[in-house]
């Protein structure tokens, strides 16, 4: 397995001669990045990365709107088809809000990232951390497929992901991802996080809105569902989560992975979903003003 190699930049450059410094900078800046080895510049003087980031971007730093604080709701579940007409498989549903503290930095983030033709990873925690490392996992999967002439299993892909994250444990990475897909062993969901955890689950939710999502999923999930029911459940859980959790919102993106294909369904506005839901159960959510 490819292990992360870390280079300390704390080397005392002032003791070098000018032409040596020049040669070193030239070598550093003029060479192409080597795709086989990952280099991460570390904070100077051996300061721990986690503390460094916290000092400059943490809640106490005063760097408002630059803080690495995030809200999300993501969920995934496996279900069996109820009738002949249904396909069954995995539903992956997510919201689309990116926030930095109370500031909503984007309303249209795609939090379902592709890993391979029949596999996706969801994004919760640090957006950059998730995007970068799923890209690394996707690369690994492509190379695996070319080398082994067979598709990688969800189990193997997620284990590679977890191992890579474990290699950076304690350095302040923030990843809460679900790797979901269909392989030769059937449907699978693995929850992977930056602490190194990797667990196989049939029903799973990650993020600040996960508690609300679990509430809906636990109440309405059944092992056997029609495709329509399953998709509606995914959307509804996301919708309820976005209502209660200020960190989640925007649109609901949904991917349905069947035994044969990966279907990306169109985005649905969660606010529209809530008004539809209120109408459906006959609840009046309009504010009734009271006399002053």
């Amino acid at each position, binding site marked *: 397995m490819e292990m992360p190699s870390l280079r300390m930049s704390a080397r005392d450059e002032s003791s070098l001669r000018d032409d040596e410094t020049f040669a070193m900078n030239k070598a550093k800046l003029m060479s192409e990045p080597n795709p086989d080895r990952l280099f991460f510049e570390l904070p100077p003087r051996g300061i721990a990365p986690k503390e460094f980031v916290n000092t400059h971007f943490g*809640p106490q730093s005063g760097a408002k709107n630059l803080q690495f604080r995030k*809200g999300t709701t993501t969920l995934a579940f496996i279900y069996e088809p109820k009738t002949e007409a249904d396909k069954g498989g995995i539903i992956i549903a997510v*919201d689309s*809000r990116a*926030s930095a*503290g*109370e*500031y*909503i930095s984007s*309303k249209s983030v795609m939090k379902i990232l592709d890993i391979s033709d029949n596999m996706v990873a969801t994004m919760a925690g640090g957006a950059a951390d998730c995007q970068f490392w799923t890209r690394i996992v996707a690369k690994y999967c492509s190379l695996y497929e070319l080398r082994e002439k067979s598709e990688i299993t969800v189990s193997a892909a997620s284990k590679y992901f977890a191992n890579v994250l474990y290699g950076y444990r304690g350095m302040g990475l923030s990843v809460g991802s679900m790797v979901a897909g269909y392989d030769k062993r059937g449907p699978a969901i693995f929850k992977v996080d930056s602490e190194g955890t990797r667990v196989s689950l049939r029903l799973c939710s990650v993020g*600040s809105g996960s508690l609300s999502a679990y509430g809906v999923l636990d109440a309405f999930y059944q092992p056997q569902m029609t495709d329509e029911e399953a998709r509606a459940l995914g959307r509804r859980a996301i919708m309820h989560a*976005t*209502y*209660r*959790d*200020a*960190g*989640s*919102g*925007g649109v609901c993106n949904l991917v349905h992975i069947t035994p044969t294909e990966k279907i990306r369904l169109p985005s649905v506005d*969660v*606010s529209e979903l*809530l*008004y539809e839901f209120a109408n459906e159960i006959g609840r009046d*959510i*309009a*504010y*009734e*003003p009271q006399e*002053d």
Partner: protein
Amino acid sequence: MSIMSYNGGTVIAMAGKECVCVGSDLRIGEQMTTIATNQKKIYKVADKIYLGLGGFHSDTQTVLNTVQFRKSLYELRENRKIKPKVVATMVSNLLYQHRFGPYFTEPLVAGLDPITNEPYICGMDTIGCIAAPRDFVAVGTGQEYLLGVCEGFWRENMGPDELFEATSQALLSGLERDAASGWGAVVYTITKDRVNMKTIKARMD
């Protein structure tokens, strides 16, 4: 998270020609969790004077009660209707009394003079520094976003209808980018003859 954004919420006021508009969102939360979506942050102080309170909800209620009490006492003692500017000074004095242990609330006063109907709006910081611009003020977690959009919506000498539209649009636009505010809005349009309250449908996320 700071105590000023513990509950969330935003209030805005705009001045027009012989009218003022004041609006707020309806969310009350505990940090990231939304507790209720029917909490307006605008309160009636006198016939044509409204007080908007952003910040920590508990202190908001304390300040409101004290202001209402002092306003009643003022009107009884002076035997005349209170002016918006007097309400503002009254709130300011109350806040400055707590200079070394402030109430965590930023108030906003909007109204018309009970006799001349001259529009008045003002905002304050937590220790009572009055800022009374002629155009618009905003307080609360979405303050920065709102002030930004207000610059684009505000025009000189707007009538009540136009002013209501500008205030509502500014409020809704501001709420789009503030996670701690939203879930519906309410807008009061104060004219010399009547006060019109409208609730506005907003995004529920």
